[in-house]
């Protein structure tokens, strides 16, 4: 699922419940990741739910690769959204993504609130930091 499709899907929702339903469905479509990738050092700090995140650079194609999972459905779905933003784009394009602004325009900015403790903010920060190293 690409980011454009996600945007369209979310736009169609008419209630928070529908919106959550979509988000959870995005999460279900993520590839299942092997348990060995759910290691402690891949855990994102500061989440009440668990989030594992791996960020790699596909040097041959010049694109970045996000692999992640969460033990909650909603956070997993939110990660799927983030992941779709970074899919199949160049490193330079990736660096220019303002994920906060995207969440804002998706109407999901509330999910970035630190008190929600879901680590979305931490995920975005981790990605941006990693990108800045390349």
């Amino acid at each position, binding site marked *: 699922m690409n980011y454009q499709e996600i945007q369209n899907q979310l736009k169609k929702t008419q209630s928070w419940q529908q919106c*959550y339903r979509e988000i959870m469905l995005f999460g279900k479509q993520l590839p299942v990741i092997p348990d060995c990738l759910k290691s402690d050092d891949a855990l994102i700090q500061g989440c009440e739910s668990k989030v594992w995140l791996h960020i790699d650079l596909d040097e041959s194609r010049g694109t970045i690769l996000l692999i992640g999972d969460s033990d*909650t459905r*909603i956070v997993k779905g939110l990660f799927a959204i983030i992941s779709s933003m970074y899919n199949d784009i160049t490193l330079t394009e990736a660096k220019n993504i303002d994920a906060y602004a995207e969440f804002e325009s998706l109407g999901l900015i509330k999910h970035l609130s630190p008190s929600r403790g879901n680590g979305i903010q931490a995920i975005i920060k981790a990605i941006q930091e990693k990108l800045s190293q390349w």
Partner: protein
Amino acid sequence: MNIIAELRHDFPVLSQSIEGQPLIYLDSGATSQKPQCVIDEINDFYSKNNSNVHRGLHSLSENATSKYEYVRTQLAKFLSVNSKEVVWTSGATESLNIIASGVTCDLNSQDIILISALEHHANIVPWQQAAQESGAKIAIMPINKQGILDIPAAIAMIEDLKPKVMACTHASNTLGNINPIAKLIDAAKKVNAITVIDGAQAFLHLRPNLSQLDCDFYVGSAHKALGPTGLGFLYGKFDKLNALSVFKTGGEMIDKVTYESSSYREAPAKFEPGTPNISGVLGFGAAINYLNKLDPIVLHQYEQTLYSYCLNQLQAIDGIIIYGDTQNNIGTISFNYRDEHHYDIAMLLNSYGIALRSGHHCTQPLIAELGIQGTLRVSLAFYNSHNDIDTFITALKSSIKLIAG
């Protein structure tokens, strides 16, 4: 019951909405809502009487001081103790820190601090600090699989270990269990343990009579009992209280200060350095007044009815797992749905206007003991209605459907 239904209107927050839907507040264990009289009292103080206390000869300060000290006697009466045994603190957490740090110098590496497996972090971590500094050891009174304190085992531990300190919560914030603390206190006193009871959750629902319970220390937070934030209390039997070493130091708690040394006043002043939370104390006075006007037996029966009503409906939902003691309970239910994450359900419930808490509830060791990640927690108060519970149950069923779908 009708009179109780009316009380709800005293709490302005309860007519708010969440996400466009009427707010259903089921998180009183985190903090209670405040009746209008408490809000008005704070408003009045800042609009008419605002002044520092214990400092001025002028009438404004004298008024503020009289009111501030009057609330101390009000609370003392509510607890059936002496007003010089009541210290104002910034919250139950600070109260427990004052006790734990205040007895540390009397502990040594032979000593045992006995706490229960149900404690809030606020009644664990300060004791770990005390243990670390003194070399004392911490021992845990165990719970069974359901999360209920094993009283015979606990009493055996008290008799065998002869702990220097026995610290236990009156009611569990996570599970709502009411612990039979009278039994524990009796056993602990036989071995001369210092008895510390965490009443943060119990105070509002159980209105403890401390001269009957006869514990050495009892703590609570105003914000969990209709009062303002930033205020708690510490009750201690005068001699034991006064014997605690000081925690914070500064103005007002001192008798004489020279550059070389200082002498301290007696309790409670000794533990109240600096400008206190004056509006907090006055607001809490209004809360106590409010409670005093309500019949505790009627309130308690109502809360128990609500609790059973909620419990029964939850139990009727296939896949719901409930933890804790459902016989002796302040009206708090911790549950999960199958192996779904509490986070997802809490988020969905919020979209229906249901405010409840999810997670470890600052009781990580208890949650680990139960072998889970966390729970969803409904915590009720007398201002909740049967309709609140109906709305909650409907929303919960819809949330489960959404997740399963």
